[in-house]
């Protein structure tokens, strides 16, 4: 499974982990990860610890998640990026839209 999810104990944070390459092949799994959450989510955390690579369609998927989470008022955190992934995020200046840590 290239995408896995976990809820925080209080159920308010949805943690999405992407394994391996985060590209178009992950599209459906990534959408499923947040679209079918039964209870409301306050914060989304995209954990990229195990993500080796990220392409522009993955950037698009992150924008879709942000849109789903409420657009400009969304709380979406991207964390644990490796150097390559971090570089791709910063070339596109995604710090302006997401909190990246």
């Amino acid at each position: 499974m290239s995408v896995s999810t976990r809820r925080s104990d209080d159920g308010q944070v949805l943690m999405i982990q992407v394994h391996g390459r985060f590209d178009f092949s992950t599209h459906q799994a990534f959408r499923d990860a947040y679209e079918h959450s039964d209870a409301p989510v306050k914060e989304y955390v995209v954990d990229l610890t195990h993500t080796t690579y990220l392409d522009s369609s993955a950037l698009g998927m992150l924008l879709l998640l942000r849109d789903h989470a409420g657009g400009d008022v969304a709380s979406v955190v991207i964390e644990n990026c490796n150097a390559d992934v971090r570089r791709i995020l910063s070339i596109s200046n995604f710090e302006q839209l997401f909190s990246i840590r």
Partner: protein
Amino acid sequence: MNLLIAEDSHGDRMILATLLRRLGHQVYEASDGLEAVAMFVKLEPDIVLMDALMPTMSGMDAARRIKALAGTRFVPVIFITSLASEREQARCLEAGGDDFLLKPYSRVILEAKISAYSRMLNLHRSVMQQRDQIRTQNEQMLSEQRLARRVFDNVAHTGCLDASNIRYHASPLSIFNGDVLFAAERPGGGTLIFMGDFTGHGLPAAIGAMPVAEVFYGMAAKGFGAADLLTEINQKLRNILPVGMFCCGALFEADGKQGSIRVWNGGLPDGWLVRANGERVAIPSMHLPLGVQPPERFDVTMELFPAATGDYVVLMTDGFPESCDAQGERFGEDSVRQVLEGLDAGDHPFDALMARLQAFTGHPDPADDMTLCCLEVGIGGGVTDVAESTPESALSGSGSWHCVYEVRDRALADFNPLPLLLHICMEVPGLRRKSGDVYTILSELYSNALEHGVLKLSSEWKKTAEGFSLYYEERMRRLSDTQGHYVRFTLDHEPRVEAGRLRIRCEDSGQGFERQENTMGARAASVHEYAGRGMGILKRLAKEVSICGSGNCIEIVYDWEFPAQGATSQ
């Protein structure tokens, strides 16, 4: 099924044929290899049952011929042989046979083999059908792409990409990988280049590129600047693209006359300014890609660099650093930097980068999804009449008119009146061919009035690198306080026979230069300096140029006429 049996023994052949007919098959009989090949050609059987040893032509030779004739069609050849040695049996298979049965054969096994091959044949046929379907669809897609490409080329023509100071690589089908590259001459000189990389590929990426091309070429021809273009492109893409689709892009504006370039990079890899003096300046992405932010949050701040003749600007899409060698290793942005740092005087960055990439990938042709563009900055204030060749519109506008347009207070800081004024002038049919001249005149008058008249900036500053930054910092600072100031254009056009006369008067709220003793020298010097550039250009283009009032007003007279009949009559 249609079966061909080749057997020289009449008795054996009859027994086999009878057996197969009872199983419901159509059976053709041949008595030697040669006859078998001839019947194969004529009757196209599904399966061939063949004796290995026959007169005239052996079963093995016949099998070879039949397999060669069948080409990609799958025709199972089953040997029925009394050859007992394993070596002989192996030879049957080497000759192209798919299987063999040893004499005396069992009816049950024969029947089972035929139905097994019949299943294989069906499978093979459906695979072939699908292959043909895929092939047809692929051909159709390619021909649709070629057609779409032609439509796209008409909208997003190459602009001035073929100019001698621009070198680029863009695959003819790059548009279907989401890469676009546009270049346009601004009406009054200077070059605009846009490079973009849409998310995704195929038709969606290509469709997004169309409006960008229209905005780019449309607005560039009307005299809008880079910031206006970016704002419009971003808004358009934001409106039409679904969330999750966007365009990484960079726009740069080289204004040879002013000796400066402006670059905006949103999501492309570092661009580079390669200076003739050996300096290398990275132009990193400072912005979100186009189509992501709503207009009110979109940041059009452009990086400004002084540039001189012989400097190069290099832009690329991520396909360039992402190109891989045979081992899957990326070329990388570090390699790009190394190539640029290692350039010798006289080396062209474009050639050096392409050569290094080629050596790295080992392929003569770069991938479809990389675009590289390199512009050589030229100073000269060349005024090109790009509109000279533009076809006349069928609509004719007014030839006799007068208008006064005043930009004042805060509008001086954030409004560019030139496209509007140019637009008014372009309503005169014959004047459309002269849009370059008219734009240059308007823009020279306006920047003189604004920068030297209203803002009291001295062009002396721009002569040194520190002064250059200071000039633009001061310009920015002083623009924040323009209350009570104005720049007023008075335009007047009168038609003549096959010709016309345009008068433009540009007046500013500044103090001019004649009455001011202190700054007289400076402004006079700047006017003198100006004479080498702006004033020189005005004098070259206009019939008359006069300075009036206290030096805060310039008036020009511009005459135009239709080209002689026959020369360019449309």
